[in-house]
């Protein structure tokens, strides 16, 4: 009797999720059908609705980005590819399609950053923030467990070679986790959404235009001032653009 009650409770608790999952799958299939038949506008609308329901599924962003490529909306496509990469950073298809779509852009920005900055970015982008944290916590777990075993055993040296090795790994893991935190939460990257976007020397229309760029260009938001954002490009140029001209890559 007790078991039956427990089963019913679990069933009642899971029921909304199961129903929602079935509904999501149905919309997803409809969206895919729209993509297959060339009804990209409908597919995009459905993928957008799926993302509104489940904002942490990389596939939805990826498929939406593909749909936007078909519709010729390259900036939206790149934005969604970037979002899907945040959730699924080792997906080769996403990377390949992002590279392809960037090749279709009118503007191209040379990356003149130092090699170690580029290397760090590439390494950190190979894992999600959560994955990096899990690894760091796991290493910390091993380190703490080693310490506890030492005290419980009551023998030996705390700083034995194994513990030192784990400590060094822990330091590295913490460093990587810190870097990932900075990359994900401090450095805010954004995509230019307008066909033509003017970057000014100051946060107003009256300030002189510093440079122009086109849709799909990736920028780093360095500062915010009312409706303006100061952005930095990978070639070292920086300027102020309207907030409405860019969209942050944020999941």
């Amino acid at each position, binding site marked *: 009797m007790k078991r039956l009650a427990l089963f019913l409770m679990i069933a009642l608790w899971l029921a909304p999720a199961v129903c929602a*999952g079935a509904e*999501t*799958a149905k919309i*997803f299939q409809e969206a*895919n059908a729209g*993509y297959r038949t060339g009804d990209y506008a409908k597919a995009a609308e459905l993928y957008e609705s799926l993302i509104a329901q489940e904002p*942490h*599924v*990389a*596939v939805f962003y*990826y*498929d939406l980005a*593909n*749909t936007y*490529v078909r519709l010729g909306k390259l900036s939206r496509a790149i934005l969604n590819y970037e979002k899907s990469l945040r959730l699924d950073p080792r997906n080769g*298809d996403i990377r*390949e*399609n992002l590279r*392809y*779509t960037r*090749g279709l852009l009118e503007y191209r920005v040379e990356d003149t950053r130092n090699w170690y900055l580029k290397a760090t970015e590439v390494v950190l982008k190979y894992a999600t923030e*959560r*994955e990096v*944290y*899990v690894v760091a*916590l*796991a290493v*910390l*777990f091993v380190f*703490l*467990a080693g*310490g*506890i075993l030492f*005290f*419980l055993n009551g023998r030996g040296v705390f700083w034995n070679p194994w513990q030192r090795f784990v400590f060094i790994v822990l330091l590295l893991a913490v460093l990587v986790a810190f870097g990932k935190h900075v990359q994900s939460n401090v450095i805010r990257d954004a995509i230019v959404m307008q066909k033509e976007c003017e970057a000014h020397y100051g946060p107003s229309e009256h300030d002189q235009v510093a440079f122009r760029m086109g849709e799909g260009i990736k920028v780093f938001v360095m500062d915010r001032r009312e409706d303006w954002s100061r952005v930095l490009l990978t070639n070292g140029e920086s300027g102020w653009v309207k907030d409405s001209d860019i969209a942050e890559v944020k999941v």
Partner: protein
Amino acid sequence: MKKILCAALIIWGVFAPALQAEEVRVSASLDKRSVQPGEEVRLSIRVTGQSMNLQAPRLSQLDGFETYYTGRASHISVINGVSSSNVEFSYTLIPQRAGRFTLSPVEVQVGQNILRTEPLEIEVSGGQSQMPGAPQASPQRVTTQPSRPSSVPQTIPQDEAFTASPGTDDNIFVQAWVDRKTLYQNEQMLLTYSLYTRYDTRYEGFDKEPETSGFWIEEFPMDRDVPRETVRANGKRYVKADVKKLALFPTAPGNYTIQPGTLKVSIREEPQGSNAFDEFFSDSFFTGGSFFARRQNRLLAPPPIQLVVKPLPENGKPESFQGAVGNFRLSAAVDKEKVKQNEPVTLKMVIEGEGNIETITRPKVPALTGFKTYDADTNSKLFQTENVIGGTKSFEVVFIPKEEGSSFIPPVEFSFFDPRQEKYVTLRTPNFPIQVEHSEQNFQMPQELAGNAIFQKQVKSEGKGIRYIDEKIPEAFPGHAADGVYAILLWGDLLLFVLLLVLWMKDRQDRLFSKDQALRRRKTARATASVNMSRLKKLAHSSKEEDAAAFFVELEKAMIQYITDKWNLSTYGVTRQDLEETLAVHFGADDAHLKDVFELYRLCDESRFGKGSIPQASKKIGLKIFQDTVNRIERMRK
């Protein structure tokens, strides 16, 4: 050691007298007594009987002659214990004008003595002669056909051949010259470095390499003994040697300037002396120079060379032409004429001839239906004959017939441009018939080609596009699992951290207590008292008679243990009086609580020695006194 000394003495005894036995004689001779102006005469001064430490004699100024020293030769022989030696110094005399001349005696210093040669007569007759200052090319320079090894034209343009750079020593210079100044793209041109010298000279190599951008270069290996010849220029005689030869192939048409670079040579300084080593180490490049003679380095920079490279004519250029220039022959063969389906046939083509063989590419093989075609092997061998670069290059192509029946490998064309005839030449391989028999064997890469990736066809991208959408919703579980793992690890780490902290503090306390027992007792007194208090409370609730007795026994023990722990007194040897004195010291003799403690002792004594049951209230009073005592002392200690 003694043996060595004996041997040295014997050798000295045998040879020393013999070496010094012969009388020293000096003589001079001319190889001809009658010459024409400008004609070379060799003067030899021979010293016999003494060849050690001789200096080359200096010739006095000879009016009407130009003279220069050309080296020395020496010879020592010991026959039947008698030695003979002679040294011959050679000079070249070039008469400048007609007349009858007498060469005055030449002085030779032999040890402390000065010996003189006899005077020599020479007649320089007039008539048609090679006048001084008239440049004269070497008689060896001839023009021959390029198809043979010695066929490249070698004629030096007369206006350049014998000019030294202004302001430099005109007794030595280098001429860089090319066999042609106008040539076709990819046609061979010979760049030669000729060294002209009137000194005892040694060629040391390039100091600065030539700048030949736009040219494919092949270097000719030079012999150690460079052939030399005597030539005359500007009224002077020079020894000339071609010290370097390069074959250049221009890669594109246009006007070019070749900077020939700088050559390094060393010349022997005027002979100042000679010794025994000079006799044996005569190793000069041109003349009998000495290994130990003082030498002076010179850098020689020939002037730049202007060239015109003509483009290959478009007119008549065959489709099979791929840039080969020269003169070539083509031969071809197949390894078998009868094969089974999917069995390979190898066509080997050999191109042989003169020209830049390295740049020749495989002749285009026509597309064959019914055959799979693979490039198999390419080999080239370079020949560097006297003045021509040539060689052979072979190409192997593997054909694998897919269908049975009679078939053939059609002629393969190879075209080249012949610069001598100034026209394109096309060569063809024969038509090779192939009989293909039926076979059930499926196609597979021939064993000789398998494992070599270059023979496999490349997978090539046909176009660019985006990859297809992902139609599979990812399982919800992995994402949640990651969240779960993250949460477990986070809380687990927190827990472990707290646990580790506690263990660390306990460990620290244990270490401290192990060093100070009094401290340990003092710090743990209250905890022990609390444990005892709990046990006493249980006993107090019991209604059994024996439990009541046990209660007061335990109460007294607990009291004693607490007080002794607090002040580090011996638990076993302490008396009630000791306790009372200790409490009196800390509480004060008139303290009210001290009386309570005495009351507690009284109750304990009554329970043990009194008759009749102990009321429940006494237990509570006892407990309260114990608790108050503990609290009082704890407060006091703080």
